[in-house]
């Protein structure tokens, strides 16, 4: 399934890599010496319990935030060293699918997909039209070109956002929770699109998700993050056999385990007795 080995010799094997990355918000450590490599041409899944820094990782790769320490390298370039112009040049080679689609609500589907083209390329209108309709056709929504974002279902909005993300033919496609809140049909459609677009366009995909079953069907490599570090990595099959109780809990979706079901609280019996005495 992987296309990682097909990368030409002149290109780095990894499309992105994080080396010893620390990131904290106020006093809360989000990433704690994270090391992670994303191979060119792969669909790479980033998983882990909520609050383990998955979305932060995406924001570091896209240069929206800077690491407190360590290096974030994208396509051979240290993101922290880029000025605004170079960062924008790098971003033109990225596409990102936000959890809610993040479509511009004041323009229709066609204009949403055409937006990056109109901003960055001075193309004749017939060519813009052809490109937009091609991308909309790829996600199955050519017929919805004239609809406004408010007229779309969650799954359709996600697919339009995907068409917009690929309209500039990016090298990297980043997905933030692409399956969240979708019905099984939409989920299956988005899942197949991630894989087929990755292979057809020869790009690299990074997918942050909680949906273990779905992503296991399409990911080449998966990373499980916990407490700001990589807890485990490998193919979905390797992760299922992993000895770590946390990985086992996550892969099997168990309610209790190393990640406790209950938020830290005083002993329940004592709390009830204290309440009774107080009354």
């Amino acid at each position: 399934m992987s296309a990682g080995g097909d990368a030409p010799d002149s290109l780095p094997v990894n499309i992105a890599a994080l080396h010893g990355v620390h990131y904290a918000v106020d006093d809360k450590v989000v990433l704690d010496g994270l090391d992670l490599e994303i191979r060119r041409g792969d669909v790479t899944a980033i998983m882990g319990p909520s609050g383990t820094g998955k979305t932060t990782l995406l924001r570091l790769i896209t240069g929206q935030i800077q690491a407190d320490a360590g290096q974030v390298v994208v396509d051979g370039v240290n993101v922290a060293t880029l000025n605004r112009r170079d960062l924008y040049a790098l971003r033109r080679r990225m596409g990102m699918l936000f959890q809610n689609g993040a479509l511009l609500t004041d323009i229709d589907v066609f204009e949403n997909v055409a937006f990056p083209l109109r901003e960055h390329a001075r193309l004749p209108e017939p060519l813009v039209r052809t490109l937009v309709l091609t991308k909309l056709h790829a996600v199955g929504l050519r017929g919805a070109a004239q609809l406004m974002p408010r007229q779309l279902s969650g799954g359709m909005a996600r697919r339009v956002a995907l068409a917009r993300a690929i309209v500039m033919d990016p090298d990297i496609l980043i997905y933030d929770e692409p399956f969240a809140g979708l019905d099984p049909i939409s989920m299956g459609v988005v899942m197949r699109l991630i894989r087929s677009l990755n292979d057809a366009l020869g790009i690299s995909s990074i997918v942050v998700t909680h949906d273990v079953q779905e992503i296991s069907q399409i990911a080449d490599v998966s990373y499980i993050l916990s407490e700001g570090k990589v807890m485990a990595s490998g193919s979905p099959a390797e992760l299922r056999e992993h000895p770590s109780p946390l990985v086992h809990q996550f892969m099997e979706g168990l309610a209790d385990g190393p990640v406790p079901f209950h938020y830290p609280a005083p002993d329940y019996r004592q709390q009830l007795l204290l309440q009774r005495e107080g009354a």
Partner: protein
Amino acid sequence: MSLPRELASGLVDFLANAGAMSRFFLRVLVISPSGLLRPRLIVEQVYNTGALSLVIIMTSGLFVGMVMGLQGHDLLARIGSEESLGIGAALTLLKELGPVVTALLFAGRAGTALASEIGLMRATDQLSAMEIMAVDPMKRVVLPRFLGGVIAMPLLTAIFVAISLYGVQLIGVQYFGIDQGQFWSEMRSAVEIEDVREGLIKGFVFGVACSLIAVYEGYHADPTAEGVGRATTRTVVISAVSTLVLDYIVTAILL
């Protein structure tokens, strides 16, 4: 917290906000030339902030003018100078009431619309999506809205003053029977071009202030429903206070 400490904390917050807004304003000024390359976006915002505010501006202007007609006539009748109603109304409207009331109405209609629109774009990741698409939201979203507001405000002020004067005339001439020729000719002879200029300068200054506050508050809104609501409220409150403070400062400079 003790009162002096609260006051000190409030002052520090105020200065921090003022500093942040000044930096934001400088950035808007620096990128302003790039806005001229996209005139269509500015024209759209002149329509959104200006044309869509016309009904409220004209309706308010008419009634403000009619109230001025009633009150002015009552006042001037006591000293037997009813025919001076046109002069008094024109100078008051051109120099003070027109720009100030227009700015307050602008903040309430267009300012809140700008702040909530940009705040919602922040809350729904539209601004982040633009950043990822290598499109600067300051240039694509903030600048056209700011410039649209700055252009629209003096125009709205002029329309407000014109409609208000019509309202004054309606009451003074049509209702109280002041001679129409005397009403207009006395107004023409008393009003100087400097008076018109003062009104337009104030309209421009208030337009810069109200538009800046609206786009700043929207752009920095917390990405939640509560955050957008708070940004909208702050837009109205800060715009209203700033308008009155700036009115004093500009008047003191121009007089």
